């Protein structure tokens, strides 16, 4: 499979972080994704929009194969991350998920201390072949919390349970805990939908700040957010990708009439 095939119309030609080809996915008998082709540019923020039930979450959850927890999901086609064939049964799931961090719609910190939440990844993946010692741990925690703008708020309460923080802090913590194992791709499924406007703004700002260091694929229901916070935009409808272009041109003059209708709010 050649990586140098013609780019999707409108997409900027750069190395692809994710390359999805002919992806079909079934929940039991129900087909949720139909022949999805997608090329996500490395280092950019790509937003995934579309009406409720169109398959955004499904597509996102296929990339780190967390969909397979359900047990009744069947997939055909291919997903490549920097050339790694994700759907190959011999892929090391742990290694895959180390490179691909996921942020969920509902903040889901582990029922551990803030510190243990941040260090969880290093204890699972042992980047140096062993868990970090006290000093290294302190450094990792501080660095990760600084990156998500939580350090000043939480530096004195690292022993608090992650589940006791405010929702905004929880969601930031959920982003922070991905960073110590240095993922290359972050998948975010409506990361702000459980937050109030101030929290939304803070997390959006944070996501924007992470741009460039990470490739980010973010699902959102919020047009303004997609417009503000992403460089490329993908519009899905009923399990198919209808349009994919850079955000500015999609919102200024969408190529597809359905895209236009959705952006103008006619789908809800």
């Amino acid at each position: 499979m050649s990586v140098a095939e013609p780019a999707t119309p409108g997409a900027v030609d750069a190395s692809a972080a994710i390359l999805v080809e002919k992806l079909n996915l079934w929940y039991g008998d129900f087909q949720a994704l139909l022949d999805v082709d997608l090329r996500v540019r490395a280092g950019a923020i790509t937003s995934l929009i579309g009406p409720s039930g169109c398959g955004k979450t499904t597509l996102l959850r296929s990339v780190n194969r967390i969909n397979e927890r359900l047990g009744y999901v069947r997939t055909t086609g291919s997903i490549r991350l920097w050339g790694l064939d994700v759907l190959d049964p011999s892929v090391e799931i742990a290694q895959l998920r180390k490179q691909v961090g996921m942020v969920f719609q509902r903040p889901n910190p582990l029922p551990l201390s803030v510190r243990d939440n941040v260090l969880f990844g290093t204890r699972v993946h042992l980047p140096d072949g062993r868990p970090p010692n006290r000093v290294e741990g302190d450094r990792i925690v501080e660095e990760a919390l600084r990156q998500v703008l939580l350090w000043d708020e939480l530096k004195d309460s690292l022993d608090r349970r992650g589940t006791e923080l405010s929702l905004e802090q929880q969601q930031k913590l959920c982003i922070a805990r991905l960073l110590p194992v240095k993922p290359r791709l972050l998948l975010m499924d409506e990361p702000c939908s459980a937050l109030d406007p101030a929290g939304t703004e803070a997390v959006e700002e944070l996501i924007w700040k992470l741009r460039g260091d990470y490739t980010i694929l973010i699902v959102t229901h919020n047009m303004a957010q997609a417009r503000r916070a992403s460089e490329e935009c993908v519009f899905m409808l009923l399990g198919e990708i209808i349009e994919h272009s850079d955000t500015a041109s999609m919102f200024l003059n969408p190529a597809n009439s359905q895209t236009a209708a959705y952006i103008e709010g006619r789908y809800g």
Partner: protein
Amino acid sequence: MPETAHAADRRDAAWWVDRAVQILVLAGGLSAIVFIAGIFVFITREGAGFVFDRFDFREFFGSPRWTPTSSHNPTYGALALIAGTASVTGLAMVVSVPFSLGAAIYIGEFATGRVRETLKVLVELLAAIPSVVWGFIGLSIMNPLIIQVFDVPVGLNVLNAGVILGLMAAPIMTTIAEDALKAVPDTYREAAEAMGATRWQVTFKVVLPAARNGLVAATLLGVGRGFGETMAVLMASGHSINLPTSPFDSVRALTATIAAELGETAAGSDHYGALFTLGIFLFLVTFAINFAADVFVRGGQRKHRRRGRRPAASANP
């Protein structure tokens, strides 16, 4: 009841049935409380005479000499009996905790589909085996086995009773522990798996710590069960008064003492009162254990409930 002509006052059959059921259910609930209170009052009253007249704290908790039938100098030291119950229960926990935790983890976190359902039914069946059957196993299987394997003169001892009691308590502990694991929100597992944790890592680093309260409660209820168990212990422990120094010593349990001696005492005698005092002690200890278990279970529930609050609706454009 005065008849009113008001149209809204429709006391038809359904209304009466509803009233009757309410009263019946209330009576059922109250009677449970009345029975418990009644039992406690009865035991206390029967033991009270002994507690106030003859009871000597130092002797009761400090002396291993339990000779209530001695004609010239009866003594009522319960230390050996308490030590017997404690040693058997302690060993039982050593046996049952790993068994039941292992089984609960396998059933709750790893087994799926048919295997899981079959195992759950099997565990519940095990819990239904009557204790006299366990006692019988202790007498006729464990006893010769222990004599043969360890080359000791008697096989009815702490080891025998402890193993039997452990196996007996394991099914109920498994069921409660599995409930505790099931109460851990699946989002925790999903979050950990999405970070690349394997099933084992998810279980040990996330699920077990999150379920800790429920697991402690399961263990405590097992301890309570062991404390109160009578028949199997009576049959397997050797029933001789002893401060045990090794697992191969025969012992006698509090419960077994009451069961074996109560029928032969005269109501109102010192011996009779002493046995009821043992009963009060057992009652208080099991009550404390169950109460502690309850506190732990509630603690666990509250934690998860807080976590489980629903998210606000997502903002649409």
